[in-house]
């Protein structure tokens, strides 16, 4: 093959491509574009559904991913957790794998980190024991009694979250598909204690929601097909509404379950999480979108660069006449 500019372009050293990707993935963090993210129907439907819930309801937020897909799945799980906490909806947190339990811890720590504006201030199970002993377990009465005793919400916090009333960290159990199946009969039978060793049976949120039939939504965040366990073992068997948060590459695998009504909606990739953050901001829950929205700048730049590479590769291919010679096609059909 005769060496010319087109052949040199086609044989571009891949390290140049890697370098350019590295640059476009880094620069937006320092020079944000802040392009608007328009929420799509599949994300709006989850948001709207959560909007219909309140303290008398309960949801499951299942961290079904490992650190590999943390950048995509974590912002989704964080967004829906913040939404639920802001509406005082009790949340059961689960994980489908040992590594996923670590992600649960990391996500929960992020939502309740006092160094992050808009965090939720934890009141531990032990801290509000005196109120339980007086029979004060209803969400509104509990908060009123807690604040009447001189407890003041920190300035940068969005609200209180009472362990056992607003959330229970159930964590990971082996053979998680069977755990879901078992929870359709009894949550306590599967999890006698939460991750902190607190007895689930005494928790008001469990007394009001004994099994998955008493729960109003399960939101699963996954980088694998593990999210389907919730559809198979809870959605289809006891009609538990399910919402998915999945990686962008697997988002197209599950849209058919939205069409069939088996899913409330789906957040696909970082974009889905960014859309949810925008919805939270538009609804007035938080002043600013969170990490996913910032990450969208990187995606914008990377997608543009990939589009540029595709166009460049095709220009070189046709302008160099390689489509006629068949040399590049040899052995590829």
């Amino acid at each position, binding site marked *: 093959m005769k060496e010319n500019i087109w052949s040199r372009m086609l044989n571009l050293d891949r390290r140049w491509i890697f370098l350019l990707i590295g640059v476009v993935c880094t620069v937006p963090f320092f020079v944000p574009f802040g392009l608007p993210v328009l929420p799509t129907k599949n994300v709006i439907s989850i948001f709207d559904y959560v909007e219909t819930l309140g303290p008398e309801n309960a949801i499951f937020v299942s961290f079904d991913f490992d650190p590999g897909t943390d*950048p995509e799945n974590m912002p989704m799980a964080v967004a829906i957790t913040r939404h639920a906490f802001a509406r005082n909806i009790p949340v059961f947190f689960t994980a489908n794998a040992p590594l996923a339990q670590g992600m649960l811890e990391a996500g929960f720590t992020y939502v309740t980190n006092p160094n992050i504006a808009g965090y939720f201030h934890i009141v531990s199970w032990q801290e509000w024991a005196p109120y339980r002993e007086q029979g004060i377990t209803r969400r509104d009465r509990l908060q009123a009694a807690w604040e009447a005793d001189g407890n003041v919400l920190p300035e940068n916090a969005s609200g209180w979250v009472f362990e056992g009333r607003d959330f229970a960290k159930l964590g990971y159990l082996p053979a998680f598909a069977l755990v879901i199946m078992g929870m359709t009969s009894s949550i306590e039978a599967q999890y006698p204690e939460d991750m902190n060793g607190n007895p689930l049976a005494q928790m008001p949120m469990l007394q009001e929601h004994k099994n998955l039939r008493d729960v109003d939504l399960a939101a699963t965040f996954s980088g694998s097909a593990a999210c389907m366990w919730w559809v198979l073992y809870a959605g289809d068997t006891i009609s538990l509404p399910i919402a998915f948060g999945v990686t962008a590459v697997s988002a197209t695998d599950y849209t058919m379950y939205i069409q069939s009504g088996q899913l409330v909606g789906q957040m696909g990739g970082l974009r889905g999480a960014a859309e949810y953050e925008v919805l939270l901001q538009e609804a007035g829950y938080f002043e600013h979108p969170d990490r996913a929205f910032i990450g*969208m700048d990187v995606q*914008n730049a990377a997608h543009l660069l990939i589009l540029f590479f595709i166009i460049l590769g095709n220009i070189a291919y046709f302008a160099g006449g390689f489509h006629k010679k068949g040399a590049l096609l040899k052995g590829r059909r």
Partner: protein
Amino acid sequence: MKRAVPLMIVLVGGILMIIQYFIPHQISQDVKDNYTIWIPIITAFALVLGVGSLTRLHGHKVRNRAPNWPYSLAVLLPLYLVPIFGLLLPASMAGGRDAPSVFHFAFMHIQVPIQSTMFSLLAFYIASAAFRAFRAKSMLATILLLTAVVVMMGQVPIGELLGSWFPRVGLWIIDFPNNAAKRAIGLGVGFGILATQLKIIFGVERNWLGGAGD
């Protein structure tokens, strides 16, 4: 006997669980609940077997200084040290699972960055592959190329700026042609799974026995 007993367990257990699914009665629920309790217990034994097998394999390589034996050491050390720190040692000895324990450090500062790095490498390889492989060589390749570009640009805000039709057309491709193909594949796979499971339950497919009783 080595074949008959496992086959009988699978036959009875399999049929029981199929029937149970269609009977919304308390007895049926109790059967299911008992099964769901048994399985993690059996899985725990499998875990012991797996860890034992892994230890024997890699221990053998380390002892014999087989090629790449340090990698075997890299498997064995965390396999035993992390649970020891996480489950056995007290917090005063950097044990336990909460920060600032060794377990927590190993997870947050070794496991998380390693796995995130591995996954993020995809961005680099996808860009390289897009440049080298996405060529309009034929009609089908051109359709694939255009579809990929439209769906890709429909997923990011900058695509909406370039053309408001990007997200609309991208969503249409996902909702209709994509779902039609996915459903067809999904149904085929579903029937395949059903057929295989029935073959296992009725003892036609016996590879899972691993040659026991031969």
